[in-house]
């Protein structure tokens, strides 16, 4: 049992935290979010320079030999700084697919340029009618000679406006919602037949509706097995979910700290409002929720390499707890800030918005509660009967 970070992980945390403090303070971030591009390629290049984009890759793949814990450390710092750059889509998702299932040629083509910060990916998995079910796909890829023809519509693809490559889930056989018959493809965003509608998101990022109309894909676009990609997709989605939990933990910690600080300064009825017991208890509850979120994130991240059921249970448990905690911490932060918390000007509202949106990414509380129940509660019941 060891919950300590390695020296390398501590270095990652320290250098990233310093970089964010110096180059990504709240006002700078506001400027980045409001800029035409909506992100900072310079900041992304600095992350690459510090080796942060290569941290979770093995040395064999050209990385620093780290893994999910390193990504967790990075994303917690992202959460603290409300960093919008696409670490999860590019490093955790695209990087994850490539390292787990990429062919030698695909790794050769993409891994170095991902780690160097040159190629940015987005992960196009969600669909307008699929909700959180990764297998509920209406996007199809039909075999066409040695390759495929891709058609469909992907919803709210985070980071797509910044990406040159998309990783796309599509049905290659079977019926909608079948577990089999799903494949995974790398698609050029500027390929003929790909169109996007780009928009900002409420939490300061950019996303797109992405439409594919008879997009021709070569055989080399396929990642992993044709028709059998769902387990791989679920694995990488779990890794991304754990990273998202880490981001939420970072954001919660800041929302809590800012709230406590505000309660010390804000005076009403002749005293700091932090002296009122009703607010003290609420802030202590925020503290407890945050601490348990940290623990659950560690636990889920440590279990990402376990067998499928253990991994899925741990990730779902973490996402449920973080969804609940994020809501409580975010809402409480606004309530205790009063009217000031409602303003665009204060940072706390932006943490609240990010925490709110994290719940609707990669499965909300209900979705993960159900997956946990199916994996962890229903089988026990069946065994007892």
């Amino acid at each position, binding site marked *: 049992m060891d919950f300590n970070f390695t020296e390398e992980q501590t270095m990652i945390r320290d250098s990233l935290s310093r970089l964010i403090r110096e180059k990504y303070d709240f006002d700078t971030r506001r400027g980045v979010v409001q800029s035409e591009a909506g992100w900072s390629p310079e900041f992304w290049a600095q992350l690459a320079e510090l080796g942060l984009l290569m941290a979770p890759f093995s040395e064999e793949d050209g990385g620093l030999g780290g893994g999910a814990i390193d990504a967790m450390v990075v994303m917690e710092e992202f959460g603290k700084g409300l960093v919008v750059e696409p670490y999860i889509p590019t490093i955790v998702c695209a990087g994850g697919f490539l390292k787990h299932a990429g062919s030698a040629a695909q790794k050769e083509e993409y891994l170095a340029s991902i780690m160097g910060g040159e190629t940015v990916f987005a992960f196009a998995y969600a669909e307008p009618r699929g*909700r959180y079910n990764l297998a509920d796909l209406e996007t199809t890829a039909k075999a066409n000679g040695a390759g495929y023809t891709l058609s469909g519509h992907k*919803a709210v693809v985070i980071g797509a406006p910044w990406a040159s490559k998309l990783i796309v889930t599509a049905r290659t056989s079977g019926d909608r919602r079948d577990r089999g018959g799903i494949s995974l493809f790398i698609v050029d965003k500027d390929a003929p037949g790909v169109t996007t509608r780009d928009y900002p*998101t*409420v*939490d300061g990022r950019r996303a797109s509706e992405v439409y594919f109309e008879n997009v021709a894909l070569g055989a080399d676009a396929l990642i992993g097995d044709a028709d059998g990609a769902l387990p791989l997709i679920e694995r990488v989605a779990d890794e991304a979910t754990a990273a998202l939990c880490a981001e939420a933990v970072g954001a919660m910690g800041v929302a809590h700290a800012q709230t406590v600080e505000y309660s010390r300064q804000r005076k009403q009825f002749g005293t700091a409002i932090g002296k009122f017991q009703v607010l003290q208890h609420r802030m202590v509850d925020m503290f407890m929720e945050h601490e348990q979120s940290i623990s659950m994130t560690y636990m889920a991240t440590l279990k990402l390499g376990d067998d499928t059921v253990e991994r899925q249970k741990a990730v779902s448990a973490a996402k449920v707890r973080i969804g609940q905690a994020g809501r409580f911490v975010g809402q409480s932060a606004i309530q205790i800030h009063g*009217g000031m918390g409602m*303003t665009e000007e204060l940072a706390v509202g932006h943490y609240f918005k990010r925490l709110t949106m994290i719940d*609707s990414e990669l499965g909300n509380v209900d979705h993960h509660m159900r997956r946990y129940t199916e994996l962890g509660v229903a089988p026990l019941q069946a065994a007892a009967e």
Partner: protein
Amino acid sequence: MDLTFTEEDRAFQTEVRDWIETHYTPDLRARNALSKNGYLAKDDMVSWQKKLYDRGWIAPNWPEKFGGAGFTATQKYIFGMEMAAAGTPSTSPMGLSMVAPVIMAFGSDAQKQKHLPPILSSDIWWCQGYSEPGSGSDLASLQMSAVRDGDDYVLNGSKIWTTHAQWADWIFCLVRTSRDGKPQEGISFIIFPMDLPGISVSALPTLDGPSDNQQEINQVYFENVRVPIKDSLIGEENKGWTYAKYLLQFERGNAYAPGLRNALSKTKKIARIEQADGRPLLQDADFARKVANLEMKIESLNATELRIFSALSAGEAVGPESSMLKCAGSEMQQAISELTLEAVGGYAAPFVQDTFALARAGTNETMGTPDHAAPAAPSYFNYRKTSIYAGSNEIQRNIMTKMVLGL
């Protein structure tokens, strides 16, 4: 005890429904459906209010002699219920429901004659100057000063969270006219036009991202603003706190349940469109249970409101009940906005700069995302205000602690 309506009441109900059907036009419905907070742009709100005015229904709570609707208690309930059930636009409360009752009760005859008719006809837009940067929940600590100079007051200070101040022709303010005694004893209630020299309004953009000139709240600054005492002072100097408390009864005294029912019906409509595993989300057991839970809470609040209003119309005074309704009602508003956010799932993410702008354009076409999802996140962010404004829910619980528990 009797829950049934009489024949006359049912006829009245039909009359209200028919009127709404005719006057709540499709374009207004379309715009209101996309509003994040029940408000529309000013011209839409004014034109809706004028329709109600023309019918004589703009002021259900006013006495008939001032132009009130002259409803019986039951008619008032039916009217409110039908309007809420149809989801008609909100009316701006600052003139009709806030300053008007104070002017009626404490204003001079000249003030009544001057101000009540244009409030009724929606020709003058009002805003409320209560909170200050340093005085929120502790309202009595307010510092904006009114200093006598001949026949005038000279005003200096600032008001914050001022709803729709950018559209307002007049403002009612609590100001400090004395620093002797308890803080509550040196406050006066004054009214004056917003176009006087020395007044400036600056927008306070909220989390939900309003577009230009559509912000809900503002900060208003007053620098050596000169107003004649005779016209601007309501009632007696230094009695403003009493009048403010009187007003709060109106601010806190509205029924929540009919509006909550309408809000939840919108959520259900969305959950019929949204799909989960190939079925409407509303058929999802977990989601449906949350809807059912909220529906039951709304019905219990509704029954409580009916009990309280029946006691009120029998002449009992408003007590801690208004605090109870405010806590329960505002927390249910928030719960519904949370459930709506959940219903739209990932499509909560697209940032719609303003649902007004979207509504005016009539479509969310440029984003390629569903219209019904557009107001979900802005509403959820916006409705955090309900447990903060009009006396935060912590303050309401303190009031109940004192009045109900005697502690």
